[in-house]
């Protein structure tokens, strides 16, 4: 009984750390660019695929993929920002959502065409194989690593944004980009870099997720829906809020899986409805 409970909670924590990473990236992009990046899920998927392709075609191992896949996807993201997203500046932010939705369809369709739907297994790197029996639960090493790594990256992001000068620019840009421009900061470049960074973060989550889930073209869209709900629940106001809400939702799903498994896929959306009823701006949000 306890074994099952801890097991499900741990699985929830894994999901939660991916939610946290993704909603963090979403919040950073939205904060500065006013774009809800629907393509975040596709970028997560592309990260996983980049890692898988690197391993399969070039023999590049997991460790390097952690670095290279986000870089590659981040570059693609920057090109997208420069060539497409930039044209929508000043328009209703809804167009940003629609554009990135279209991009998602293109990416999913292309990968589906090239690789089919059933996906590929990304092997767990040798040094992270196996697991430990903790008595109250069995802990597969790689999954523990995935949680730890994701949380570390989340915390690092939080630190950079909330506590450093770079982060101060970012926060200032969120409040008033024009003023920042007047201070001599190259705001358009900052936009490009921020979007690229968000995309890279999603891709990073994708690489970490690759050995846990299958690498499939649709892996992103199933997760992005939940992340959107996470963002509504937490509100997009704060980085810390995004992280906490992401983890919380993951754990809640785990608990539901233990008590009543069929409800686990809907519980997030029910919570979203409840939060809207009580606090329309989200748990950590403020009305903009």
């Amino acid at each position, binding site marked *: 009984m306890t074994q099952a409970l801890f097991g499900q909670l741990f699985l929830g924590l894994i999901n939660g750390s991916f939610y946290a990473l993704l909603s963090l990236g979403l919040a950073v992009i939205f904060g500065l660019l006013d774009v809800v990046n629907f393509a975040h899920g596709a970028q997560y998927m592309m990260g996983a695929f980049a890692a898988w392709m690197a391993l399969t075609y070039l023999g590049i191992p997991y460790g390097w993929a952690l670095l290279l896949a986000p870089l590659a996807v981040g570059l693609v993201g920057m090109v997208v920002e420069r060539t497409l997203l930039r044209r929508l500046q000043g328009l209703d932010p809804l167009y940003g959502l629609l554009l990135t939705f279209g991009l998602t369809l293109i990416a999913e369709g292309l990968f589906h065409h090239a690789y089919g739907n059933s996906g590929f297994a990304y092997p767990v790197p040798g040094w992270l194989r196996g697991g430990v029996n903790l008595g109250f639960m069995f802990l*597969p090493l790689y999954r523990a690593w995935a949680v730890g790594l994701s949380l570390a990256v989340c915390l690092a992001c939080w630190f950079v944004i909330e506590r450093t000068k770079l982060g101060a620019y970012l926060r200032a840009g969120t409040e008033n980009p024009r003023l920042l421009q007047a201070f001599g900061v190259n705001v358009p470049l900052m936009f490009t870099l921020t979007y690229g960074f968000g995309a890279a973060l999603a891709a990073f989550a994708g690489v970490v997720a690759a050995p846990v889930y299958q690498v499939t073209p649709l892996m992103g869209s199933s997760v992005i829906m939940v992340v959107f709900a996470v963002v509504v629940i937490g509100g997009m106001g704060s980085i810390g809020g995004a992280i906490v809400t992401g983890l919380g939702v993951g754990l809640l799903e785990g608990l539901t899986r233990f008590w009543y498994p069929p409800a686990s896929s809907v519980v997030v959306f029910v919570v979203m409805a409840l939060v809207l009823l009580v606090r329309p701006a989200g748990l950590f949000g403020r009305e903009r």
Partner: protein
Amino acid sequence: MHRFALALVAAGLAAGAAPAPAAEKLSDGKVKLGVLTDMTGYYADLAGPGSVLAARMAVEDFGGKVLGKPVELVSADHQLKADVASNIARKWIDEGQVDAIVDLVSSSTAGAVMPVAAEKKRITLLSGPGTTAFTGEKCTRYNVHYTYNNWALANGTGREVVKQGGDSWFFLTADYIFGKSLEEDTTKVVKAAGGKVLGAARYPSPGTTDFSSYLLQAQGSGAKIIGLANAGADTVNSIRQAEEFGITPKQSLAGLLVFITDVHSLGLEAAKGMYLTTAFYWDLNDETRKWSRRFFQKHGKMPTMVQAGVYSSVMHYLKAVQAAGTDDADAVMAKMRETPVNDFFAKNARIGPDGLLRHDMYLARVKAPKDSKQPWDYYQIVKTIPAAEAFPSVEAQACPLAKR
């Protein structure tokens, strides 16, 4: 509409100018087969392009013509979606003059297409799906369930596993008609053999890739056997993840539907010792080896039972059209029922009034790596299950057509 008008004109001209006695019996002057399968999804490996190839080989081996007219072959990807499958079938029949639809892997698509085809008097030749009810309460007059069904799997693998001491079960079930049918059939067998069933975790399929939370439920049940009521990529993933969570040495997995392509992607190390029930294995005898090697040369993989079944069913259909002298569905169905199937796939097998082809099945065990002498040398055949035992009797079927 244009095409329809043109066809009418063409047919009129043909009838007026050169009356070919045999061709008159063919609707639209040709026989057209449609392979409707999963080209890119979870079952693409076990059916998919291999099924299309098998059908094409059958048409070519038949000579490419029947009753002096060319046999046409089309194929499409139903993406495992029931609505897509039924739309394609409708389009094929209404606009494309397709006479028979082949494979229909995944029961949800077969279940959607069968009534559409039957209503319009077109034949369905099921090779991929397993749902037992297709020749039971869901049976139609124009359907042949050709390769295997869940009843046969449960009675082959399920019975053997209980006999080996696996008397408490928990199911990991793909939550759609096929998985539920397989779970139901196996539950009956387990209970009849004195075992008990402790529960089931049903997951959305297709689409689930992470089985860990369901596996933890299975682990928590304490059952000796975790029965995998799923197929294709799902089976492979659940076996891999059971190993990752340290479940497998303590509890055993029973793959109720395992294809040779699944064993191939798992590798013998992970799959060794597993029992499975199959309608076909390439290395049974000279005939199967000869056909399978031809298939292998074109496809790069040995055929699954579904793909072999597609070949055999298309061949049987074309022979029936030839013998009946028409592609009229009633006449062809009668001919197919009348004539036993005798080829590399099945010996003296007959299609019952319920539409089920009853043939021998094989209980096999996956070899350990050290026993495998050549590529694709994966199975050791434990026993042959004769047709009469392998499938439910006509009387046991809830098909109204069988109750005459």
